[in-house]
């Protein structure tokens, strides 16, 4: 697997040299492979938001380097804007950034900034709308007439239309109801599968991360605490609890059963997995058929 992004001793201090100095990210080094779906977890103030904003050059690191496709993104500070098209960033509550007259124009905004035009632009906009399940007839409406969930998806489409190599989503499901969360999450998974692009997902929902992530970054107190496969990370539930994080309920249940001496593997992440494991156990004991 080839790596697409590398962080080398990355650090950031807010208000450096002032009395308000505050460290947000401390010496983070890691490598992300092309085509991975990486989850980022950590409680509020752990530094994860600052970390992701350094990946597309919105925040300039005070220490260390961000290496994208083998090149430091700050090698030529004047060209930093081009990095933002390669690393697409969807902020929290992105629906608040919609501003154009039509949904179509809003989705096209970033792509036009990138320099797309004509058929290429049209294709980019329509395929982004398709990935986020926005019906074609919505594209001519004003973004302010959409429902809450549709607005959110239109805003995400605006970043996808820039055709980034890496897509970063900061709490994309915050504030949505269970159905909206479900729909959005499966669209992200579909985008990731079909495009084969790298996706970084920041989330407070451990259930969501457990379901979709290949690997998980755990941040605490501005430091990188863990970076491992999702199974491995959630198998360390006690440690996560120290960082103010909870493992999914299902993982906790299966962990407790294991501690009671049942033959159950570590790091069970979904109800489906748990169901199969328990069914197999019960069958062996002859309790179900």
């Amino acid at each position, binding site marked *: 697997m080839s790596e697409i992004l590398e962080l080398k001793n990355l650090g950031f201090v807010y208000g450096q040299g002032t*009395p308000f100095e505050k460290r947000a990210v401390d010496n983070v080094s890691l490598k992300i492979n092309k085509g991975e779906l990486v989850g980022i977890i950590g409680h509020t103030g752990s530094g994860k938001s600052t970390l992701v*904003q350094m990946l*597309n050059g*919105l925040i300039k690191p005070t220490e260390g380097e961000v290496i994208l496709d083998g090149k430091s993104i700050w090698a030529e500070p004047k060209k930093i*804007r081009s990095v*933002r*098209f390669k690393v*697409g*960033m*969807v*902020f929290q509550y*992105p629906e*608040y*950034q*919609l*501003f154009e007259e039509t949904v179509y124009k809003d989705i096209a*905004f*970033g792509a036009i*900034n*990138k320099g797309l035009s004509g058929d290429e632009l049209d294709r980019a906009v329509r395929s982004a709308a398709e990935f986020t399940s926005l019906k074609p007839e919505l594209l001519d409406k004003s973004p*302010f007439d959409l429902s809450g969930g549709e607005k959110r998806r239109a805003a995400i489409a*605006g*970043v996808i239309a*820039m055709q980034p190599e890496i897509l970063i989503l900061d709490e994309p499901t915050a504030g949505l109801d269970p159905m909206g969360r479900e729909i959005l999450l499966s669209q992200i998974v579909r985008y990731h599968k079909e495009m084969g692009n790298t996706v970084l997902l920041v989330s407070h929902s451990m259930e969501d991360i457990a379901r979709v992530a290949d690997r998980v970054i755990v941040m605490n107190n501005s430091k990188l605490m863990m970076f491992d496969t999702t199974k491995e990370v959630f198998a360390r539930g006690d440690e996560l609890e120290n960082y103010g994080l909870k493992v999914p309920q299902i993982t906790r249940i299966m962990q407790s059963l294991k501690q009671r001496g049942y033959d159950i593997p570590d790091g069970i992440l979904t109800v489906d997995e748990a169901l199969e494991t328990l069914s197999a156990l019960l069958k062996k004991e002859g309790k179900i058929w």
Partner: protein
Amino acid sequence: MVRDVAFGQYFPGKSIIHRLDPRGKILVFIAFVAIIFCTFNYCSLAVTAAFTAMFLILSKIPFKFYFKSLKVIIFIVIITSVFNLFYGTGDVIWQWGIIKITWNGIHRAVFVTSRIICLILASSCLTFTTSPTELTDAIERLMKPLNVIHFPVHEISMMMSLALRFVPTLLEETDKLMQAQKARGADMETGNIFKRVKALIPILVPLFVSAFRRAYDIATAMECRCYRGGTGRTRMKSLHLSALDVMSFIAMGLVIGGVIVCNIFIPSVI
């Protein structure tokens, strides 16, 4: 970042200045603004400057915040002082083409600069030490007599206090919007003025939309908390003048007296 603007912020504290009655503070401030434009010689200017310095020290707010509030207007200060420098009358002491500098011009530049600085420092001192609620509450009480002519005093002061309450929230939102649009490749740093103004649209439109949404929400929240206008309303903090306020009035009186005396006995330099 936009958030760094110190001007208009409030720093809770318990200093002598914090404890002054906001109504008194406003009156003293108005008198001060009037008197600062009546300084015509260095002696009276020194009196007002000393008075400003006294207030700043007594406010116990770190000076760096005052410097920060000055930083915002430094551009205006430089422009006006340069203009004044070149537009003086009287004996020319230095000339280059049509540009000439006179003693009168230098004096004018010094006076304009000092007056603006004193003004900004004094108003910062007022807003740093008085919470927006206190401030609007005081304005409401001072303007109460206008109720007689059906001037909507309560409504206006309520609007002011809500506006002040939302300044930091909207600044923060502007910051977030700028980051979000930059992430979509918006270019806000380069180009001519026309291009830069156009680049503001993606910030301003969402900002207005959200301001309206917030206004609607806050109106609902206020109704839920039994708001029904100014009639029959009481206030948790009742205002009353104390010895401290009387002392601030006396100090102000001394400054006014001092400036008048200086103006009588010392000739004007501008």
